[in-house]
């Protein structure tokens, strides 16, 4: 029994990691309707920021996390102004290929700067052990992940629903023309939204070094997973992504535990069937 609980929690924590990686995409793809496959590249950038600060500059792991968010967000804002805003109005295929091209180039840059080997970082003591809760031994890093994911969800949902900026984002997304007419600087709002979404990816990337491995192809490895989370959860729904990520994590870990020979087959099958019957995802509105 306790073993099943431990596996369940393992899956849940993995799901929370996926959620942290994909919540930004649920903002850029879900709200701005921009098919942003470059999201994985920003996660990778965040990962390398943390790696560089911990391993090369000797910072403690926790202190690097805000910078993983901030630096990635700044880089993303730069690229948004330079490149991405030019293709918001393009067709889907062009968006897909442009952003894939971006991932290609970024992973080459990462390989040039950091080499192609797997990187890892030194964790603080209290995140490496186990914590015993009600007779179940749980790895403390995964508890930490789940806690951060909850905090991020609350901040993002509250930020979108209850702040002035959130209202401005929703207005710009729903009707750009009217929003412009009311005096909102839509392109600035989009740039900020994009930067925040990508910054969250960077944070997710930094947190995932310990569980997934960080190498230049990181952007591709997580791409499919985060796309599944966003598509299944429903565009523009942060809670949807949360639920989808939790389910995906639990499904994946349970599936590999119960039917190891089927691998990820079940997940893809589940996604295809679900999207066929509900093309908008579980909680999609538009």
């Amino acid at each position, binding site marked *: 029994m306790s073993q099943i609980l431990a596996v369940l929690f393992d899956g849940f924590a993995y799901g929370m990691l996926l959620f942290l990686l994909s919540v930004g995409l649920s903002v850029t*793809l879900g709200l701005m309707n921009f*098919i942003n496959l470059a999201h994985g590249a920003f996660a990778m950038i965040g990962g390398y920021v943390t790696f560089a600060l911990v391993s090369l500059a000797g910072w403690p792991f926790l202190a690097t996390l805000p910078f993983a968010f901030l630096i990635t967000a700044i880089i993303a804002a730069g690229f948004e102004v330079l*490149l991405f805003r*030019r*293709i918001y109005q*393009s067709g*889907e*295929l*062009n968006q*897909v*290929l*442009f952003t*894939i*091209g*971006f*991932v*290609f*180039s*970024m*992973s*080459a*840059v990462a*390989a*040039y700067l950091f080499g*192609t080997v797997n990187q890892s970082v030194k964790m603080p003591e209290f995140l490496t052990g186990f914590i015993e809760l009600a007779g179940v031994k749980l790895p403390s890093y995964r508890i930490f992940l789940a806690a951060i994911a909850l905090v991020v969800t609350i901040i993002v949902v509250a930020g979108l629903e209850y702040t002035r900026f959130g209202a401005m984002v929703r207005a710009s997304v729903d009707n750009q023309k009217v929003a412009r007419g009311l005096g909102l600087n839509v392109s600035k709002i989009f740039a900020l939204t994009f930067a925040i979404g990508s910054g969250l990816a960077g944070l997710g990337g930094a947190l995932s070094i310990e569980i997934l491995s960080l190498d*230049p192809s990181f952007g591709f490895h997580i791409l*499919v997973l985060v*796309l*599944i989370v966003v*598509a299944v959860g429903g*565009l523009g729904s942060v809670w949807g992504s949360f639920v989808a990520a939790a389910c995906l994590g639990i499904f994946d870990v349970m599936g590999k535990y119960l039917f190891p*020979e*089927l*691998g*990820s*087959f079940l997940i*893809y*099958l589940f*996604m*295809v069937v679900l*999207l*066929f019957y509900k*093309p*908008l*995802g579980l909680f999609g509105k538009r």
Partner: protein
Amino acid sequence: MQPIDPQKWLRNKARISPYEIAFWIAALIIPYAFFPNYLALASQIAATAIFCIALDLIIGYAGIISLGHAAFFGLGAYAAGILSQKGWGEPISGALFGAIFAGFCGWIVSFMIVRVQHLALLMITLGLGFLLVELANTLDWLTGGSDGLLGIDTWNLFGVFKFTFWGYTAYGYTLGAAFLVFLLCRRLVNSPFGLALETIRENPQRTTALGVPNRARLQKVFTISAAIAGLAGAILAQTTETVSLDSLGFQRSADIAVMLILGGTGRLYGAILGSIIFLVARDQLSGMNPQYWYFWIGLLLMIVVLFMPRGILGGLEKIKSKLSTKPNQKVDGA
């Protein structure tokens, strides 16, 4: 203004230009005469061009975006490869078997494809591709799993020409298939059916109002495209005598979409040109670390999307029409 006779208009559109004849003659002669050491590459390019044309049919003409079309390429490759492994190595019937099998799978999938749009369509095609890779990996008694399918033996073409390491037969065989596929697709896109596809791509509501059965048309072209992709896979499997898991994978789907965008969608020759440029460049730059090769590919993709959204051929056409319309505009202005 004269009323346009639709049949005549289509016939005009389908007229064969001397450039086309020159292109195909060059495709036959140049590799044999000048690059006999590169015939293996040339036949790989021809097989890829077939695949790229298949993708052009659905993306360029019908507007169905698929991120997992390599699934059908791989199905064709495995079907032909397994047939040959089990003892029937006759190339032409083997390739047709691969095409029919992939086409049948494409027909089944098409029921799903035509019912979804946008992100769901992208994700379903992507998901089906990954699903198939996992399946092929699991069924390793049939497919050889991650070791790849070994033991393919392709018999002589027409019982006479042997498939050798140098690829003389392979290139002739692949180029012949590419030419036939091209003729078929050229006929297809210049038919009322092809016109209907383009109209559905531009405005599905209006075609519905005109009485075009959108879904039936899209299903048909998806099935044809899957069969052609399967043919390309089968031919590549026969000429290289091996099939590996990556013939199904996302990387191949992405590469082929890159080639198509590079060359230009919706014009068939764009698909051919794109595969030539991509594969020749990759071959020439193969001394480079693959990571760096992808830097240039990524950069090229971004440049093409930003500045030449209709590909190299589309860009050339635009320059040509600008040059030829400028004098007229001056007349209008005066």
